[in-house]
């Protein structure tokens, strides 16, 4: 590792240390990731977390035995919530990953080539964006049939246009920069220009967008599950748990409250981190 790269690493690390918001956000996300990866070990009642009912213990309030109480099937809520981290993470990685990949590819080609391809991609994404956010996803998942797989498809369908537009606009403004024009004049292949010169300079905007979207997708998937269009029982999806606790909200308040709290905290952490990253990666603000 050369010294420049090392210095950069240290700078990145010290950014994290000197930034309370980023520390809190990344700690929450580390816990979230740990829950997703090691749910079997972290959950106090792994079997109940995975869905096994325990009818002797239904609807017990928060206590020392069950820190967050139990649900209508007697399952330990803390274990269920820990088991809910994995589907939440996988959902958001799948949706954001696919949407970013498709959108970036289309956006890059559209911005670089221009002309008919550009017009086509842009009109198409404008059509998708002419509906209120989430409406298309809701409609698509309803018509395709409720369930996690269809919810994923529906979310990807309405998410890619944002990436296509972002990448297209950025690559268009980069395209006329001297370093890109020179590379092209020197006979560098289009693919290399797109990946080496355009994409690399767009990475920071892309990262900021992805960080915020990872949270937003969890929120959206939770909303779908809440009205019955997303993940179905016996999934440990958080949105679904909020819906299940809804009928008993005034008596057994803990089910909906803690399940929703999990969504809220994780989304908040992603958004905080996205915000901090935006400030950090924006060269104008970093100079201050």
């Amino acid at each position, binding site marked *: 590792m050369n010294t420049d790269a090392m210095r950069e690493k240290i700078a990145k690390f010290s950014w994290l240390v000197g930034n309370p*918001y980023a520390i809190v956000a990344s700690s929450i996300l580390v816990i979230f990731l740990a829950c997703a990866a090691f749910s079997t070990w972290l959950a106090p009642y792994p079997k109940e977390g995975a869905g096994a009912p325990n009818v002797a213990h239904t609807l017990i309030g928060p206590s020392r035995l069950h820190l967050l109480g139990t649900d209508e099937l007697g399952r330990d809520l803390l274990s269920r919530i820990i088991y809910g981290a994995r589907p939440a993470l996988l959902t958001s990685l799948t949706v954001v990953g696919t949407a970013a990949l498709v959108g970036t590819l289309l956006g890059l080609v559209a911005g670089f080539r221009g002309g008919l391809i550009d017009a086509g991609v842009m009109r198409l994404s*404008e*059509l998708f964006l*002419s*509906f*209120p*956010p*989430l*409406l*298309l996803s*809701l*409609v*698509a998942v*309803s*018509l*395709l*049939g*409720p369930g996690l797989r269809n919810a994923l498809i529906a979310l990807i369908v309405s998410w890619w246009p944002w990436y296509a537009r972002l990448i297209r606009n950025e690559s268009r403004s980069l395209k006329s920069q001297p370093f890109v024009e020179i590379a092209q004049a020197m006979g560098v292949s289009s693919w290399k220009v797109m990946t080496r010169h355009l994409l690399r300079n767009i990475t920071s905007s892309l990262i900021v967008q992805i960080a915020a979207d990872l*949270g937003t997708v969890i*929120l959206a998937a*939770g*909303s779908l599950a*809440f*009205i*019955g*269009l997303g993940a179905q029982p016996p999934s440990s999806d958080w*949105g679904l748990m*909020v*819906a299940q606790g*809804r009928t008993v*909200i*005034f008596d057994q*308040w803990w089910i*909906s*409250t803690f*399940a*929703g*709290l999990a*969504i*809220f905290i994780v*989304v*908040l952490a*992603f*958004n*905080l981190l996205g*915000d901090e990253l935006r400030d950090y990666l924006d060269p104008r603000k970093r100079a201050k």
Partner: protein
Amino acid sequence: MIRLLWRRLASASLVLLAASFFTFILARIVPSDPALAYVGPKSTAADEIKIRSLLGLDQPIPVQYFKYLKDVVMGNWGYSLSTKQPVLHEIANRLPPTIELIAVAVGFAIFFGLMLGILAARFPHSVGAAVIRVLSIAGISVPAFWLGLLLQLLFVGRLGWFPATGEFDLDIKFTSPIHHITGFPLFDAAITGNWVAVGSGLQHIVLPALTLAAYSFGLIARMSRANLLEVFAQDYIKVARAYGVSERVVLFKLALKNAISPVITVTGLSTAYLITGTFFVEQVYNWPGIGGFAANALISVDYPAIMGITLLGAAGYLTINFIVDLILTRIDPRIEAR
């Protein structure tokens, strides 16, 4: 101004045309057969053939589309499968309470968002500014359906300050009925001087409106803070302050004018977000509007209603964008020159 209007109208009708095509295609790729959904499970094969020709489902797809398009323009949006009422009729009945809810929510969002955004920009290094920043990010991170339940739990269940669901107390219908004038119940109650109904309506609207407002509040607070900070750093503000111009004049006369445009844009954007937000909030609060109807239609695959709602959503989105553009051109003359 007129030219802008025409251009927007032309592009709006194009978008709506595309949207109608989109909903049509979506409804045709439904795995479940619409005719079967219409006749129900106890039907005979003869019923099915009859309903298929009645609904025009035996025609070629392009013919079906043009017929659908004609019907949409003529105001025939089909019949809801679950209520058996004309979709347009359902929409007309349920839209006013939703618009009232959105209007109050946007009002809350602008008021609290601007106020806190200004405070955070005015005292950027205070503890308050940090709190406001976390609050605004919390606003865009909180699941509306969960916030709704929490507010119910706290203010209805524990404190008993507000009623749980609906738009008015049930006995209003008998004690002081609302006269139908514009169709907007709260507005009608107010202009007919029906203060009992107004009071009950206001009590009912506070919690759902607050729930709905959270997201917009977050965006507006964040945007107004960021823009004001940028404007405060500019030379003309520094000069004004150096000349001893009062802070109030600096803020309201000089700074806000230049910082407000992006705030208005983001307000419009978040209002559009509220359209889908009502699907969840109205369900939680049992609000008699279009959102709850939409949520039910989506769950029961009531496809004529879904198509109607999708078109309505696109139209609502276009309208909001159009209003935002009008406001922006009015307050910022540079835009029209573009």
